[in-house]
């Protein structure tokens, strides 16, 4: 009677294939961000000297300037995406049966969905970064510095959001706490959260080693948040 077109595991399929609304929003946001990058680089270019070594001259390369687009707007969009992706798990009781069907000691379903959305946003953000800084990239180290500057804040806010959703089984506290984190961090210019600031340009970080400590801290905390979120969500 029923013909199955799918013969693969539906871990991801049933969860994001039908979330056309969310996917459309992400695609629209991605296109807007890339166009904005093109606008910056062509019409309103960054005061960068062509060929400057970003790694050697972090401050000279003007990476110390504030990047509200990538350190405020993209993280806020990330929070909205994660909340939207997970709210239906907890608004009803869907998480109970989905948790029961998880066979691993790690909630694969939560991890894979978080990963898909986070990677999508990171990819879009990086596309914007590389368009903006394309004339300043001289070596692979420059690429690494740019990635260190712009990946950890998005990763951190995404994992923080997931962690709170899973702990409270509700997306509202996650939305509120994550938004407050981003806004307070911006208002305080990074002074409030010190080593956990999202801003790569904060006063605390006007030093290359502190910059790396900050970025590494964000990445480590992100991994811990995701790990605990996926571990604790194997139980209810």
């Amino acid at each position, binding site marked *: 009677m029923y013909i*199955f077109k799918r013969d693969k*595991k539906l871990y991801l399929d049933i969860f994001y294939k039908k979330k056309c609304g969310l996917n459309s929003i992400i695609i629209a946001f991605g296109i807007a961000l890339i166009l904005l990058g093109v606008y910056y680089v062509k019409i309103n270019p960054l005061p960068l000297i062509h060929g400057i070594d970003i790694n050697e001259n972090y401050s000279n390369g003007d990476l110390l300037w504030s990047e509200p687009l990538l350190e405020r707007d993209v993280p806020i969009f990330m929070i909205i995406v994660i909340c939207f992706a997970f709210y*239906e798990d907890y608004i009803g*009781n869907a998480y109970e049966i989905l*948790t029961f*069907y998880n066979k*691993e000691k790690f909630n694969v379903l939560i991890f894979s969905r978080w990963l898909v959305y986070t990677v999508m946003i990171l990819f879009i953000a990086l596309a914007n970064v590389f368009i903006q800084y394309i004339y300043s990239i001289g070596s692979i180290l420059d690429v690494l510095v740019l990635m260190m500057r712009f990946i950890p804040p998005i990763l951190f806010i995404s994992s923080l959001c997931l962690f709170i959703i899973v702990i409270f089984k509700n997306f509202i506290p996650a939305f509120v706490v994550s938004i407050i984190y981003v806004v307070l961090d911006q208002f305080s210019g990074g002074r409030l959260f010190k080593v956990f600031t999202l801003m790569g340009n904060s006063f605390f970080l006007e030093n290359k080693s502190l910059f790396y400590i900050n970025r590494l801290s964000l990445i480590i905390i992100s991994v811990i948040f995701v790990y605990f979120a996926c571990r604790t969500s194997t*139980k209810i």
Partner: protein
Amino acid sequence: MKNQLKVENISFNYLNKKILSDINFEYEDRGVIGLLGPNGSGKTTLMRILVGLKTPKTGQVLLNNKSILNNREELVNMVGYLPQNFEIYNYISGLDFLSYVCDIKGLNNEEKKEKIDYLVEKFNLSSVIKKRFGSYSGGYKRRLGIAQAMIGNPQFIIIDEPTVGLDPEQRFEFRQYLAGIGKESIILISTHIVEDISFYCDKIIILNQGKITFDGYRDDLIEIVDGKIYEGIINIEEYDKVKENFRIIEQSGSERGKVKLRVICEDNNISDGFTKVKPSLENAYVYFQAR
């Protein structure tokens, strides 16, 4: 082959409060076990422990002599579960969800198709199976819930509050489904509705304040109470006096100005007008709750 379920010394605390203490029971062969208890007695917690969704402080669950709590793969393959509020995403069709569960349980395409066809027919889901879950009525949601719990021929099926939220017709229909699948596996049903239990349960476990107060068969339960239940019709003016001296366990309207009561009396010291009656399962359950 006979199935064997053994629950040993299960205890569970939440914030230093004892929710379950020393839960032990066992059952062999196929059939339906009814777990009866008032709201807040720990039934749902016990159900969630049995399906590995909560970790007990102590104890283990053995299914055919295999410990299932420490091996999720084994647990998911051997156990079917229908939670109290069965919900999936509103935008997913019943077919997609059943297909997903078949994948999780490791059925190949042929088995998957065969199983879903069988379940769709058995639970009369053909008119809704391709529709979004959000458009299902309460009855269809429960039917889909029980269908997904039966995928992979589990030896042990756990159903939490099966008839909550269903109208009388749907309840009757659902009870018939459960009676049918009780011939294939061990089914543990938790409920606070005695009517559910009396319909199809072989064995009854009564849980009160986190402890088992009765573990046995239906007739054993009724037998314990036999001789302690009296029925009589009294004038409405006498009601307060009777209530003061006896525990009323059933009450129904009678002719004008009179009321028909069933009371518990353990020492035969009963007022005139009351006669000993054969207790119902509900009377026996209320008696246990009152102790």
